[in-house]
């Protein structure tokens, strides 16, 4: 089966005073329709930069390398296919596009139309002086021409309804500040899904919310993913949240994926010392079990020569410093970037 998203060697480089740094370093991942991939990492791991690369929202001056195919990968032909070949849609196999090769003009159809994003803080990503309904209508109009005003309004209210917003007709007439945090995040989700994207990127969508509201939003995202066969890339620092929403999980450290596999397997039997350390450092309701990881995340400008986690690792060996370990297969679909995996 063709994955919905297939990234291979995706790299993002940013210019700094100390030269180019790689917040995203040769990341390969894939997401199928209806599947949810959790992307876990601490600040500076590159998880947000990866999301921005998939949305074509990288800061000016950033360099992108590798491939990230949305839909069927173009094979054989030397030149990667472009978004302009959308005409192939409906002819059986939809044409895929390499997100790393899109031009800004081409991004406009993809962003919102095929990939949408939900951000951490709904208050700062909604327009404070525009009614909720009007903001959703804008998203619909941007991707579908030929709808009557009445249809657009109806679709916007339906989008709110789908995101389980109660009294959607009334909410559509309100401004963001009149809604609670949870309702604002529902409105954001409604807006993201209004133009019918196939892939949803959610960057810490519940971090700013209370736990009781977080639970509702996680349940909502889970339901929508199943109903709409959405691919979901869920970015979070919280392993407990990942356990609830993700089929598979990828753990990032200093720009690279260091462990990937089925969520339950990775969380119950982690193979990389960093994943193990992260689990032991995550507070749970159990008392007296907390054990931190010493040190802190390395600066991208001063990465160690070998494994980036080596300076903090209690299991380090001599060969950890010689080269960056490759991703090794620990189980059938579980890999870890560690020399200890045999």
């Amino acid at each position: 089966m063709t994955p919905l998203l297939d990234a291979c060697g995706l790299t993002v480089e940013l210019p700094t005073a100390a030269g180019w740094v790689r917040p995203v370093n040769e990341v390969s991942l894939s997401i199928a329709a209806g599947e949810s991939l959790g992307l876990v990492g601490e600040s500076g791991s590159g998880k947000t930069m990866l999301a921005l690369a998939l949305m074509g929202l990288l800061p000016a001056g950033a360099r992108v390398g590798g491939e990230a195919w949305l839909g069927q990968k173009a094979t054989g032909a030397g030149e990667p296919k472009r978004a302009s070949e959308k005409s192939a849609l409906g002819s059986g196999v939809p044409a895929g596009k390499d997100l790393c090769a899109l031009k800004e003009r081409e991004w406009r159809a993809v962003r919102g139309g095929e990939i949408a994003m939900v951000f951490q803080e709904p208050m700062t990503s909604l327009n404070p002086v525009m009614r909720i309904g009007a903001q959703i209508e804008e998203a619909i109009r941007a991707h579908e021409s030929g709808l009557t005003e009445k249809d657009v309004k109806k679709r916007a209210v339906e989008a709110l309804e789908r995101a389980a917003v109660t009294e959607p007709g009334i909410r559509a007439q309100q401004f963001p500040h009149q809604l609670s945090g949870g309702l604002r995040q529902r409105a954001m989700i409604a807006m993201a899904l209004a133009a019918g994207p196939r892939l949803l990127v959610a960057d810490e969508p519940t971090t700013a919310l209370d736990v009781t509201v977080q639970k509702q939003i996680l349940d909502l995202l889970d339901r929508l993913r199943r109903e709409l066969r959405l691919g979901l890339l869920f970015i979070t620092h919280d392993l407990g949240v990942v356990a609830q929403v993700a089929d598979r999980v990828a753990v990032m450290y200093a720009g690279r994926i260091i462990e990937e596999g089925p969520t339950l397997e990775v969380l119950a039997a982690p193979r990389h010392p960093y994943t193990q350390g992260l689990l032991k450092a995550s507070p749970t309701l159990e008392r007296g079990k907390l054990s931190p990881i010493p040190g802190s995340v390395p600066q991208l400008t001063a990465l160690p020569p070998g494994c980036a986690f080596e300076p903090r690792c209690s299991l380090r060996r001599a060969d950890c410093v010689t080269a960056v370990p490759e991703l090794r297969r620990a189980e059938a679909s579980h890999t870890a970037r560690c020399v200890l995996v045999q």
Partner: protein
Amino acid sequence: MANDRTASLTGDPSAALSPSEILLEARELRKSYRRGGGVFSNSAKGPRFTAVDGVTLAVKGGETFAVVGESGCGKTTLARMLLRLIEPDSGSLRFEGRDLLRLSGSALRAERRQMQMVFQDPFASLDPRMRVGEIVGEPLAIHHAELRQTEKQERTAAILERVGLGADALKRYPHEFSGGQRQRIGIARALILRPKLVVADEPVSALDVSVGAQVLLLLKELQTEFGLTYLFISHSLPVVAQVATRIAVMRAGRFVEVGLADQVLQEPKDAYTRELLGAVPALPCRWSGS
């Protein structure tokens, strides 16, 4: 009625506390604000919003009393009232038996020396134009102006060392440090006066998981070493579970449940406490290491 509530909400074992064991005691603290309004409002009178609605508590010396609740429950307003950074509308507040609400001027300053605060955001709470040595040593300059310069510097270096920062930190600026290191600077500043009570308002919620765990364990070590009493404010039950001796669950300005941490976590009495506990995302099966 009021007395019944007071007794049931003080929670065990404080009901049995002798007055000499109680470091901080608050009775029926209340604070309300005018709702809405803001800069452009001309309605001086209007409906009021009660942030803290009659909270009674007794914090025992040496314990960690945690207040947990969701955003808007009044926990930060409560913390600030306990330090008299916000004036309560009514109620009483005693520190080691002395009435804090009647104090002013130098007498209040003397009490403040005993009570310090650690803030949530280590990026916003440190003056970016001051060197770390000045930030951490400033409380000494204010409360112990009589000390010689060299002694102030020695004490500053010693406390920085104790929270895990080297002497080279003295001359550097806050922006040169990571979030976890900045929180250590905030802790050093709070502890340099050797206070009895430290109010920590969400001290790890802005930090990464691995660094947050370091800070929580550091706080516990320092508590034993300096004989500190903590009032620990957080929205997170898992975080509170790691440090609390007793837990008070706060909702809409009131304590709905107070009790020993194990009891609140394992046998919650209030429906809201159960709801909060139920909403905590659980890990599938705790990996215990090998």
